[in-house]
């Protein structure tokens, strides 16, 4: 691949454009795009350009405005239909824009202004800005994001009034760099095979970003001065995983990214098609399919494999990576990054699950670490660490897609003390003026027989359950999962384990809280029918297992699965359960 040298046709420039430079932004939609840059400059038309209009022209000015509204609505409708075919539900965003442009209250206000002598452009700007301001100063982060929606619709209207359109045909195979991008453009970009986009304004919860993610269109947002530092028609690379834009890449950089792009492409194309289907059984039971992920890379893999959320983040992996406890700022950054990449889907952070088997400061060596100071026991012993972690997770919860999961609960006091700490963390953050999700769900791991047996009581205290089948099996059958000598005893298909799981699921269902399975059992091919049969409504597995698991769910019938499960719990042994399940599978 040759390296482009002339960036500006026929013009001399004193800027050294050949220098490779990296611009840091926010990763808004995963993927790598390499292409020619199309720079769209912002509209800086000042309202002062317009003077008041005379009496006799006001009626036609109102008509000009009303025509623009109609045109806008039609455009939005068309893109909505286009988008609906491709991405279904997410397309509803465009429908909202149509509602906004047709909103009679704002229409009335604008028409009144025009009748008072304001040109349509000024009237539109003034009224939309009034609404925008209201959102801009909202307390809620998600509501503040709606200011962009109002701004987007305003810009669209002004463009139509000016008869200006982004020429989508020239945009083919290019990367768009623009101050901001409206959802409608994202759809049209996709139609005209634009490779990706870069914007100056940020906001991962913006509707444009959500659309880009569902279309698989790489995007980096929040890059300061993007439109002034990039050169039209030059080659740029956008890395939507890391949130990096590279202008004038050196040949070796280019090669590196071409390789990375090919790798990712090969994996994802087929998967993405499958990922579009929901995990619903033949008779309509919907299972939420999540993935376990420990790093931001895992999140990307999970989402391309069709995960609807992240059901388990083992935060202790961060300690393992650093070889020490991360401080609050480091944790916050990590949690925030994970939650942004997962948005709008939910991410579940499990508090540090560590014990004396993993050399931790201040803990004596224990003879039997699996039954010792691990999980919540360690956290309540080191409340400083626990509180810091809760605060960091809360800070990352502003977009309301974060859940906190407490490991190794064996009794009710551990829940009460943990909830007390959550309360204290919230108070501290409120006092220091931090934004967070006041209703962040807090759930517990059900991985000890005691918590499973008491699930009907514990369900009243928390927002969700997550069954850790590996530990639940180990503790129920008193068989160390790492000891090969007892590996035949350690078996999650044992009816005793199944009964504990069933009791947990029933308790959750009765209290209307969600219950998930996040252990190996969840991804086991012979277990799917048992899980559906016991009434699980959420599963979280290793990303690579998702496509097959989804296929099994889509083939299953909940009614039949329930019968299979009823039979299974009447079995005497794990072996008998396995035989029953495999007999059923063969019969099919």
């Amino acid at each position: 691949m040759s390296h482009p040298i002339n960036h500006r046709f026929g013009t001399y420039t004193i800027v050294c454009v050949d220098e490779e430079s990296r611009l840091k932004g926010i990763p808004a939609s995963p993927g790598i795009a390499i292409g020619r840059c199309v720079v769209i400059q912002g509209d800086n038309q000042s309202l002062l350009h317009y003077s008041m209009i005379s009496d006799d022209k006001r009626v036609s000015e109102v008509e000009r405005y009303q025509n623009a509204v109609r045109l806008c609505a039609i455009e939005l409708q068309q893109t909505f239909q286009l988008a609906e075919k491709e991405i279904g539900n997410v397309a509803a965003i465009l429908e909202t824009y149509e509602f906004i442009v047709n909103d009679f209250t704002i229409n009335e206000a604008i028409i009144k202004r025009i009748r008072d002598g304001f040109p349509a452009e000024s009237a539109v700007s003034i009224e939309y800005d009034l609404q925008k301001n209201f959102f801009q100063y909202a307390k809620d982060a998600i509501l503040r994001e709606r200011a962009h929606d109002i701004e987007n619709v305003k810009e669209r209207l002004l463009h139509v009034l000016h008869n200006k359109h982004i020429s989508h045909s020239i945009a083919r195979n290019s990367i768009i760099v623009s101050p901001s991008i409206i959802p409608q453009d994202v759809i049209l970009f996709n139609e005209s095979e634009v490779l990706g986009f870069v914007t100056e304004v940020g906001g991962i919860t913006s509707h444009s970003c959500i659309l880009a993610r569902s279309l698989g269109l790489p995007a980096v947002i929040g890059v300061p001065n993007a439109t002034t530092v990039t050169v039209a028609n030059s080659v740029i690379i956008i890395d939507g995983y890391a949130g990096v834009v590279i202008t004038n890449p050196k040949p070796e950089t280019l090669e590196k990214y071409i390789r990375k792009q090919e790798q990712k492409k090969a994996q994802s194309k087929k998967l993405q098609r499958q990922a579009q289907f929901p995990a619903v059984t033949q008779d309509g039971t919907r299972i939420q399919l999540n993935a376990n992920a420990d790093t931001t890379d895992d999140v990307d893999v999970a989402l391309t494999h069709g995960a609807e959320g992240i059901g388990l983040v083992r935060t202790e992996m961060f300690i393992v990576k650093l070889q020490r406890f991360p401080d609050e700022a480091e944790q916050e950054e990590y949690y925030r990054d994970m939650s942004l990449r997962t948005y709008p889907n939910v991410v579940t952070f499990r508090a540090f699950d560590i014990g004396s088997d993993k050399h931790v400061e201040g803990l004596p060596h224990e003879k039997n670490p699996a039954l010792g100071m691990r999980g919540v026991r360690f956290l309540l012993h080191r409340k400083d660490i626990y509180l810091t972690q809760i605060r960091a997770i809360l800070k990352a919860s502003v977009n309301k897609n974060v859940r906190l999961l407490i490991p190794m609960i064996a009794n009710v006091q551990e829940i009460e003390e943990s909830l007390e700490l959550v309360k204290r963390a919230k108070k501290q953050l409120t006092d220091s003026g931090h934004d967070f999700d006041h209703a962040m769900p807090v759930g517990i791991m059900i991985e000890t027989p005691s918590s499973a047996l008491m699930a009907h009581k514990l369900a009243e205290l928390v927002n969700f359950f997550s069954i850790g089948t590996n530990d639940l099996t180990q503790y129920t059958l008193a068989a160390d999962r790492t000891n090969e000598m007892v590996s035949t005893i350690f078996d999650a298909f044992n009816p005793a384990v199944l009964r504990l799981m069933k009791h947990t699921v029933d308790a959750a269902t009765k209290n209307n809280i969600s219950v998930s399975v996040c252990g190996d059992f969840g991804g086991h091919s012979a277990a799917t029918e048992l899980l559906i049969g016991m009434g699980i409504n959420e599963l979280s597995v290793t990303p690579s297992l998702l496509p097959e698991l989804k296929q099994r769910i889509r083939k299953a019938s909940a009614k039949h699965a329930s019968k299979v499960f009823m039979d299974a719990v009447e079995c005497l042994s794990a072996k008998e359960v396995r035989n029953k399940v495999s007999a059923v599978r063969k019969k099919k």
Partner: protein
Amino acid sequence: MIETDITVVNRAGVHTRPAAMIVKLAAQFKSDIYLTGDNQLRINAKSIIGVMTLAAAQGTILHLTVSGEDETAAVDKLSELFASGFGEHL
């Protein structure tokens, strides 16, 4: 005229999508439908911008005022929509 209180039960509150659902539903009725939020602002439930400005978070109690020939049906359907949490995963 019927007046009643309705609670926002879904986690994310009345954000864009629920707002659109409210407006869509409200538009099906001939009655005048108003919602009053925490900020004492009374808004027309048929206006999306109005409903969005309610900024109603989870747990907010909104005051619903409906008057017109189909007021009973309108109150029923709107209450149902709020109670369903706008189809959100609760």
